[in-house]
């Protein structure tokens, strides 16, 4: 598990040192930040590039990250080729994933050691009983809805513990996505991808305290690693164990506390096969679901162990099982906790899993209907390397389809929000404040894509068919105009903007232009 070092980002590290540490320097001259704090294009960068180069740079920044900032744009344009820059991010992202994330000191509780989170959650339950809140746990507020500045940092009431953690986690995700100097863009992207693939819902009370920790220590930590390691880490984490009711599952007829008879819960086993690995056509049956559930009995949480995981042998089903034709249980010699490990690795290595994940990656990075040849190539690489994400991402980023202008991608609300934040943030030396984060979270919530707030384990789709809707477009423009109301016009965006949009923007007063550029059709695609 990656250990956590918390840094005070505002005061501690100079921006330049951070950029250096993150491997993002090189090519671009140092003085990107003018004395006034507004971003300017360094004079030594060539005045213009070809349209094709700008298009490639836009695509690289918008897909391998969350869009351009002044600094990022300068860097990518100065690289030999934007495509090459994209490829370089694979190793850079991996390197950063092995280091702790940069989280502001006073908002880092969400990633603290699990035993502390368990303790806080328990105190929260007790506090709630004391406070006698009327709303039951399952209908308690979605955390991002009530975010306030003080909720993020100050010592709040214990009964708001998990909500505070959830808000901190959401804030971190937004900052990581919109500040390339804080988090490698590709790492932020893959954190999103994998969180969505192995989705947990912050609105489920029992899972809520753990969702941020899950995002950092499971998803981010393994985002560029081997898929089966990521999957196993997910399977053993309290967020997932609670979200899909695995903690409640026990061998049929086993006795729980107070002598209560317990039994099997299929929820996690089903979604593990249907969504996390094989896919609904992946060749498993209802019987396989049940058998896998039997294999996984005993997998539960530990409030004391640093891993948060415990194998409860007492409720484990020790009988013989058969999952997709493979024997598990005491007849095969494997047993106990190892069974679950083996079953999960088996599913991770199944060819249908390679297919499913490759298709999702191609949809996420390339096109809503990705070319089949690309999906197959990625799948072959996935299988050959046992799910090594660096190998798969290199394959993807070098594929011609990735850079083909015909493969358009419409931004999801999350893409739109983070790319807008990145632009506005780029023009100032101040940190993104709590109010802005709150506005952003509210926008995402209204748009139907709240952070860590997708209710079902399938995760959200990223295609235009889902997100391109008439009124939804107008809400994006609202958000953009509000966000950028005090921002100077982002000159660095102009080369990426069409003549028609520039003409429409230039007709308007200067104060409006930043918002209009973010609200324009050009900014809706990545």
């Amino acid at each position, binding site marked *: 598990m990656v250990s956590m070092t918390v840094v005070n980002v505002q005061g501690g590290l100079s921006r330049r040192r951070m950029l250096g540490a993150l491997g993002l320097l090189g090519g671009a001259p140092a003085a990107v930040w003018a004395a006034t704090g507004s971003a300017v294009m360094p004079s030594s960068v060539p005045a213009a590039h070809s349209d094709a180069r700008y298009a490639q740079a836009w695509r690289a920044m918008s897909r391998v990250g969350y869009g351009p900032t002044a600094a990022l744009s300068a860097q990518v344009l100065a690289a030999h080729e934007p495509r090459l820059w994209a490829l370089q991010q694979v190793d850079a992202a991996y390197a950063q994933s092995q280091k702790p994330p940069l989280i502001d000191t006073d908002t880092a509780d969400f990633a603290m050691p699990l035993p502390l989170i368990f303790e806080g959650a328990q105190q929260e339950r007790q506090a709630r009983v004391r406070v006698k809140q009327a709303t*039951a746990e*399952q*209908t308690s*507020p*979605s955390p991002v*809805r009530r975010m306030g500045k003080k909720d993020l940092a100050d010592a709040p009431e214990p009964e708001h513990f998990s909500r505070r953690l959830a808000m901190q986690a959401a804030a971190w995700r937004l900052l990581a996505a919109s500040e390339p100097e804080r988090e490698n863009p590709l790492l932020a992207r893959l954190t999103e991808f994998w969180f969505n693939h192995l989705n947990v819902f912050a*609105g489920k009370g029992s899972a809520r305290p753990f969702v941020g920790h899950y995002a950092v220590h499971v998803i981010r930590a393994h985002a560029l690693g081997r898929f089966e390691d990521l999957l196993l880490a997910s399977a053993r984490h309290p967020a997932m164990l609670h979200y899909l*009711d695995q903690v*409640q*599952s*026990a061998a*049929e007829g086993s006795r729980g506390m107070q002598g209560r008879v*317990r*039994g*099997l*819960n*299929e*929820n996690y086993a*089903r979604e593990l096969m*249907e969504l996390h690995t094989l896919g*609904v*056509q992946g060749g498993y049956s*209802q019987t396989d679901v049940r058998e896998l559930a039997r294999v996984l009995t005993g997998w539960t949480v530990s409030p004391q162990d640093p891993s948060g995981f415990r194998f409860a042998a007492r409720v484990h089903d020790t009988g013989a099982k058969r999952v997709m034709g493979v024997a598990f249980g005491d007849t095969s010699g494997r047993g106990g906790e190892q069974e679950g490990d083996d079953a999960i690795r088996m599913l991770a290595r199944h060819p249908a899993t390679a297919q499913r994940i490759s298709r999702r990656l191609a949809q996420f990075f390339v096109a809503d209907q990705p070319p089949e040849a690309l999906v197959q190539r990625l799948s072959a690489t996935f299988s050959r390397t046992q799910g090594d994400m660096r190998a798969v991402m290199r394959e993807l980023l070098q594929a011609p389809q990735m850079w083909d202008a015909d493969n358009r991608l419409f931004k999801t609300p999350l893409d739109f929000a983070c790319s807008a934040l990145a632009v506005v943030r780029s023009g100032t030396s101040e940190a993104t404040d709590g109010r802005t984060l709150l506005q952003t979270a509210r926008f995402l*919530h*209204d*748009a*139907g*894509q*709240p952070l860590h*707030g997708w*209710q*079902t384990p*399938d995760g*959200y789709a990223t295609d235009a*068919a*889902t*997100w*391109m*809707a*008439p*009124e*939804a*477009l*107008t*809400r994006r*423009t*609202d958000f953009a*105009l*509000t966000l950028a109301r005090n921002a100077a016009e982002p000159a660095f965006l102009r080369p990426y903007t069409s003549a*028609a*949009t520039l003409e*429409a923007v230039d*007709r*308007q007063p200067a104060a*409006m232009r930043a918002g*209009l550029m973010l*609200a*324009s*059709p050009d900014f*809706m695609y990545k």
Partner: protein
Amino acid sequence: MTPDHDGVSRRALVRGLMAAPAVWAAPVLWAQSRSGGHRSTAGRDGQDGRLVVVFLRGAYDGLSALVPYGDRHYYAGRPNIAIAPPDGTQQTTLALDAMFGLHPAFAPLMPLWKQGVLAALPTAGSPHATRSHFEAQYHWETGAVGERSARPGWLNTLAGLRMQAQGAAAPGASDGAGRQRASGAVPVQGIAMGIGEANPQILSGTAPVQLVPKGQAATRQGALGNGRTRDAVMGLYAGNDELSRMFRQGADSRMQTADTLNQEAMQTPDEPALNTAKMVAANNGAGSVRGLLLDVQHLSTLMRQNQHLRLGFVSAGGWDTHANQGNATGLLARSLGDLAAALVQLRAAFSQPNDVVLVCSEFGRTAQENGTRGTDHGHGNTLWVMGNQVQGGRWHGQWDGLAPDQLHEQRDLPVHHDFRAVLAQVLRVNQGLDAAQLQALFPGVAWDKRLDGLMRA
């Protein structure tokens, strides 16, 4: 292929909104004039009905809503989560007949049952045996069971069929209120609407659809409310490309929506339940059952104020009760109570002679409880139909009880009635669709004569 924007009727609508008393009178006039001018050319007379579909995502437990208390297997299989048989007290089933009763949380629906406008089908569903929520929802929303290729939603296809029929009828007619309609024109937003920002599959397709966000976001005009910014923004989307046209459509419909809802809010006295719903909708994740009441309220207002809208869609999640489901009280009971409140509101808003409300879910849940006092994914489920055209006050279809050998794969309610056959029965009457149109909507689906008694002819 979006029809040109009908500037005349929009101005008239806005004018109508400004004169408050006229707003309430207008719908009645409109309804009367409708039968004169805008009947569909195919199908039965005056069957220009409105249809609202309420989709419960996550497979709600119908056996807890329409309780088969008369079947001993129900109690044998659900020792912890069964609803106690009726004994006249609060926490027990409300008897409907010797076999079935309502969950006590559904008490507000009892008057509707007794009035004969509410009916249930306990064993409806998709013939496909998938227990994947997402796959099953896709089948329900497209009507193309078993297919995975891209398909339009059936509500969108239905909207297209109706708009074709309307366009073919009486071009250039004027309605009773004297508003001249341009030839063949349908409002640019179409005749179907849904609550929810992302495009629900059931509404996706080539027919234009109005999508309004869940919760209070629907009431806000945002930047478009300021003339200056509105002009500046519209200048960005002046082109002929798909995105620009869509943007302009969205801008128009959004302003109308906000206008309509805010007018309504100004005129409606404060209702505690609604305020709670607003508060809770603002606090909860949108899409919860508690938020459903507010969404239903918005749907009702928008469809009342814009009589062009004939098809409506809302959804609510949170039904996937794998653990600790509860019985007469608890998690599911609360959701059922919230649903009942929403359905009462829908009935109040959609009680014209040819209004129908449908409540459905992608599949049911296991007849027996699981090891964690919940239920797992099943097959057949209870489908509810509400409206004057419905033979209410009774349940319809085949019921063989819950003995294990009567269950699908020994665990689930069987599907005796393909949901598309149920829809065919409803739409034939409510939408005036003929056999050819029903086949276009649901290719290959056979007519289910056993349900001929579902709708009043």
